[in-house]
């Protein structure tokens, strides 16, 4: 099931940065890479629930601002040797608009 929700224009998300999307139930961090790929993760680090949206993005990973865990943007999982995953959501970009499926 794909409930695509339009959330923003691609330009509204800074390159190598993110925006926080607030839903009724949680915060979702939406990231944009250098080459304009867009990824979405639940805005909670698997370690101590730090807000991943506030981390530094490089390549397709984000570094959590609280304790420097590196999370893969595609899978939502910590990169080795740390272990743990947060939820990853599907995104798409069409005509400069970013859509999110939760």
């Amino acid at each position, binding site marked *: 099931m794909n409930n695509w929700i339009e959330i923003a224009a691609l330009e509204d998300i800074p390159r190598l940065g993110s925006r926080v999307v607030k*839903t009724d139930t949680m915060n979702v961090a939406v990231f944009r890479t250098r080459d304009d790929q867009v990824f979405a993760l639940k805005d909670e680090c698997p370690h101590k629930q730090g807000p991943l949206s506030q*981390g530094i*993005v490089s390549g397709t990973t984000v*570094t959590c*601002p609280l304790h420097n865990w*590196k999370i893969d943007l595609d899978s939502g999982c910590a990169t080795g040797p740390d272990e743990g995953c947060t939820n990853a959501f599907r995104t798409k970009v069409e005509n400069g608009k970013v859509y999110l499926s939760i």
Partner: protein
Amino acid sequence: MKEKLVLVGNGMAGVRTLEELLKLDPERYEITVFGAEPWPNYNRIMLSPVLAGEKTVDDIILNDRAWYEENGIALHTGDAVVRIDRAGRKVLTGQGEEVPYDRLLLATGSNPFIIPVPGHDKKGVIGFRDIADVETMLEAAKKYEKAVVIGGGLLGLEAANGLMKNGMDVTVVHLMDILMERQLDAPAANLLKASLEAQGMKFLMETQTSEILGDGRAQGVKFADGSEIEADLVVMAVGIRPNIGLAQAAGIHCERGIVVNDTMQTYDPRIYAVGECVQHRGQTYGLVAPLFEQAKVAANHLAQIGIARYEGSVTSTKLKVTGIDLFSAGEFNEQEGDETLVLQDPGMGSYKKLVVRDNRIKGAVLYGDTIDGTWYFQLLRDGTDISAFRNTILFGQHDLGDAGHGDETRVAALPDDAEICGCNGVCKGEIVDAIVTKGLFTLDDVKAHTKAASSCGSCTGLVESILASTVGEGYDATPSKKPLCGCTEYSHDEIIAGIKEHELKTMDAVRGFFEWKNPDGCAACRPALNYYLLANWPGEYHDDPQSRFINERAHGNIQKDGTYSVVPRLFGGLCTPEQLRAIADVADKYQVPEMKVTGGQRIDLFGVRKEDLPLMWKDLSEAGFVSGHAYGKALRTVKTCAGKNWCRFGTQDSTGLGVRLEELTWGSWMPHKFKLAVSGCPRNCAEATIKDFGVVCVDSGYELHIGGNGGIKVRVTDLLCKVGTEEAVLEYCGAFIQKYREEAHYLERTAPWVERVGFDYVKQAIVDDEAQRKALYERFKYSQQFAQIDPWKAVAEGKDQHEFQPIEITAA
């Protein structure tokens, strides 16, 4: 099609190279490994504990067969390569295999040197090199009684100790008059000999072996003076010879070892070599730490990144005999003109000697108390000027751990449940366990796997000591040249110099010039480069918010629940009723759950939601406040005491001077946080002597102090000089800050920076060299034009709204 890489020699250096290569470029090669021994890669330096019965063979396997499979490596054990066909680019093995290569890596190690005396080929005469030798010794220990070890070096003594532990009567025969003469001086060697004798080991010193006696099997040893002793087992441990036969037969240039250049390449450009078989700049190495440095370089070139260079190693040694602590490094026998610092306590059985040349450590020998070995070794390799703490250096680095822990830092003696890392709650046992089970050799590995020393870093010395005492000489000490981060091979200093010299003005330019491995960099190097560019090109470089840690991007400190704290600037800690009222109004309006007075004499408002920050800053800005930068690697606060306007002891206007200093310096970005203080008299109520720059007013002027720190590691400032006017204070302060801003490494506080470059260097630049001081001060004032723009006001007026405004959606 993938290129083919063949590794000859399945030992520590070769396999380490593969590991490094797989990290850099796992897909480049189809890899085949040949090992003459029947085992997968094991930790050769742990053979002594296996012999002594403290470890099993399984304990010391570093890469099991599953590891080779997982990485798609074809492993041939028990089959030695006998010929390299360089023209046909293939290797041939004893069992008749033929494997072609595009690149060949030689890691053939070394062979024990067997003295060619008559009888050396008898049964029961062996070297001490591999698991087979250990098995032979263990077998012999079951059947026989008497063993002779020829060679009183590191390996010989470890073998003798192991045999003794297995119940044999052991005599060590040594040609020289002191044991371990390549690592020890006479006093330390005598202490060692005495304690080994106390354990039952016997010694024949200055004794030359002339013949191994016996009928088929060794039964005794005869010496040059004609005397003889009984021996059922003879272990020759007189040295190793690089194993160069294969390379030599293939016509590759060899001297004592296979000759390689700084990229670990042999004279045949398709063939690389690492490890004990190698001769680099005339040196061969038999210890493991240098081999790992070589492995890193070889892997870098095999991955065709092509930027790493091996420049030789300084090595240190630790004897792995339980109950005996011994450490040596560098040139431990003094030469003419050297100075020797010695601390000797026969009662405690301890001996420490440092050889010092031009106030720099050249060598160290420690016996009994070796806890500071890693520290001395670091000072040696960094070439640190020790004049500032020379009078206490022999007593060790008492502040290894958190300030005030003193003797608690003697790690070897600590129980397993002793907490080492107070930030992350990691105990000694967990660290030792991770090192042993996961085969860790570097501080970075231990940090990644255990989280110890990965937060505030104050326990780094302790963790390094645990690493050193757990793996002995296998400890891969942080190389003296430390890359800025995992994205590059270049150090902070090289990158700072490159930015200036080649006028690199964007982050992409720096990463391109220095051949960064990741185009975006990482969370460690991005903030560093952003700072270096900002500091070097004020007014030209555009700050990159996405390369700043969130605190600096959001101009507030992120708290554990994701809210922020807000600290308005109160210049010099002074405030008015109106200002306090304005702060109180803001706190009410945004329902701030908690407020507190900070250590730097400011007011902190906690628990602010990120989206409220711009609104709050607008209100504060209208009341005349600017950001307090309590969140930044920046000028934090100027702390002051009452001063002569009120205090009966005050000698100068400390508050007024504090305000002037803060007005001069606020907004400045720094390598790390930077704190000032001004005390009105030597009672020093503002605690100026633990600040980055502190002023202590006296009746005749102002004493200027630098490089203090009241945090992780308390450090009292050094007195820079005394000046007569407030104007001079401002000039010296600005010049000192600018020197620090231009030259320190990112995330290096002034205290370690001053210790690294030397106080005299800083003093010379700021005090003695007036022209330099004035130029630094001018550059500081110039850069301040661009820095003193209040970030809060800018956001309140609409800058970077995307950073603060969430997108709200309601699920359909």
